[in-house]
């Protein structure tokens, strides 16, 4: 069974999805970071495919991507790294990137390769809903890959319903008007928005992302969704001092603080 679907069947709260850019800070760090995150009890890993022009991302993720590209990261290297990771890990794994990368690789070939190396799902923020429905919906079913579409405070209810009907895995709830990495905390209008989404009783689970950076924001997000996604804050932590495992442990313990104290 698809690892993401199986995760959401057994766990319904406090799900922690951590994003990092493949090939950052060093080309071969992907493996160690992924295993480090698994060791800390992270539920889902979202691997970013570094891209020259990541429109939906802020400076932190773009810079990590530029660095990864300078390190020599390519999609083929990434697929090989994931293959190696799968020898040791059964953690749910998502690839996040931009549709141009998929098209240039060859769309069908790309998705088949994802399946072959053990990727469970995809997030492609600039893939239009109608293009997915027309060209890839069936293929994703056949390959048992999940797709997560984004919703924002401006997405109308009718479109949220449509997104819910095409999404498999989870809906990516963009917390605010923002690119990734914006530091604002969580405002009252965002809470209203989370409540509005909850009241819709969607068929997919939801993870809240963008602006989730610490224990406090993670905890609030978990009150209104099955869990949350952390990206830029973790990338910043990876660029910090200490060995990789130390940086990862320190960051994740800090995020999960309350959960650990309670348990």
């Amino acid at each position, binding site marked *: 069974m698809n690892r993401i679907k199986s995760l959401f069947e057994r766990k319904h709260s406090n799900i922690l999805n951590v994003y990092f850019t493949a090939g950052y800070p060093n080309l071969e760090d992907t493996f160690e970071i992924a295993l480090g995150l698994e060791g800390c009890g992270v539920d889902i890993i979202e691997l970013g495919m570094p891209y020259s022009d990541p429109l939906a991302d802020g400076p932190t993720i773009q810079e990590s991507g530029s660095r990864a590209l300078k390190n020599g990261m*390519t999609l083929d290297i990434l697929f090989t790294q994931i293959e190696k990771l799968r020898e040791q890990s059964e953690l749910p794994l998502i690839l996040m990137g931009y549709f141009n990368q*998929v*098209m240039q690789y060859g769309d069908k070939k790309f998705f088949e390769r994802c399946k072959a190396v053990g990727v469970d799902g995809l997030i492609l923020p600039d893939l239009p809903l*109608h293009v997915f429905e027309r060209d890839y919906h069936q293929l994703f079913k056949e390959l048992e890959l999940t797709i997560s579409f984004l919703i924002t405070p401006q997405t109308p209810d009718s479109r949220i319903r449509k997104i819910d009907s095409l999404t498999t895995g989870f809906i990516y709830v963009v917390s605010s008007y923002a690119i990734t990495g914006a530091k604002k905390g969580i405002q009252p209008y965002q809470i209203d928005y989370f409540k509005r989404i909850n009241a819709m009783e969607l068929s997919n689970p939801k993870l809240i992302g963008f602006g989730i950076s610490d224990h406090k924001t993670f905890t609030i997000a978990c009150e209104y969704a099955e869990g949350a996604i952390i990206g830029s804050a973790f990338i910043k932590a990876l660029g910090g001092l200490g060995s990789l495992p130390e940086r990862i442990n320190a960051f994740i313990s800090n995020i999960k603080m309350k959960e650990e104290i309670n348990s």
Partner: protein
Amino acid sequence: MIHPATNSAYQVDDLGFYGEFGGSYIPEMLYHNVEYLRKNYLNIIYEDQFQKEFKDLLKNYVGRPTPLYFAKRLSSHFGTNIWLKREDLNHTGAHKVNNTIGQILLAQRLGKKRIIAETGAGQHGVATATVCALKGIECIVYMGSVDIERQAPNVSRMKMLGAKVIPAESGSKTLKDATNEAIRDWINNPEDTHYIIGSVVGPHPYPDMVARFQSVISEEMKWQLKEQIGSENPDAIIACVGGGSNAAGAYYHYLDNENVRLVAVEAAGLGIHSGESAATSVLGTKGIIHGSRTLLMQTEDGQIIEPYSLSAGLDYPGIGPLHSHLIQTGRAEAISITDDEAMDAVFLCSRKEGIIPALETAHAIAALEKMIYKDSDHIVINLSGRGDKDLGTFIKYIADHEQD
């Protein structure tokens, strides 16, 4: 006024495609604004009051119609009939203002209080800052930090006009990165802000909307030619293409008239295969840039390549989806011109006609050297901008070549 029918093979379809190019490949965070624009842009811009104000400003503020001038000495130099469509005589010195006038009126009707724009050479930035000053609206222009250095006079002009110029420090720090930063600003400020894109690029409806605002160029050409040569149709229209807005405007009313040759001139930089080029139609492959499926320069792994041209207005790694379609279907022919060839054309036009063209525009003039035409042909060159902004580049070029 009823907007023109869209039953042409070269007009955008309902989903925003020109053949297989175009569309709207954007993150959900932009969907609301772009979709609202898509649903409403035609109704807004063809509304009577809008057209009245648009035409009034083009006439009394911009200075339209721009002349269609028979270039006698260039004609005898090339042995054919050459007409220059003088977009350089527009207020702010280029065709860019046709679009910014249209979009500022649109922004007002959308109730937007804040304008953002990207700029490469600074011409679109200046044209945007100008209309924002005209309407008293806040203006923020994103410009690559590399371009800020090489286009200092235009940076000063924008500041003089009250705009805030924000350097784009990401990626390669040029036009494509300025565009990324502008898009990110729009994601962060979706409610009060309108994004004035400067070319026929970006997600649908931008390429079509910008082409419609620029279409005044070919609308005038038609009656001006009729008046001067007795026929509305030239044999060929030549225009330079970075993103392609001046070309789209110069072609627009001739797209379906297959007797009129359309020539798209790209920047070959130091030579098409030199590794320092912006000749997208030759070097590009199908992909997505800034929300549009088009031809673009990219690596095998789908990373966008930074192009090169001496002219900051032509070094965009893609071309507008309309142009990809025109070139792919053979409707337009693409010609590439190097930096040196363009510089020769700058001097030729200056000394033969007393007109110093923009470096971008000079690429279009240089294309005559590479085209086959008849003595009796009437060829229109869209003289998209004036060369004042490039004086620094010209002076440096002369100095460098005197040393050789």
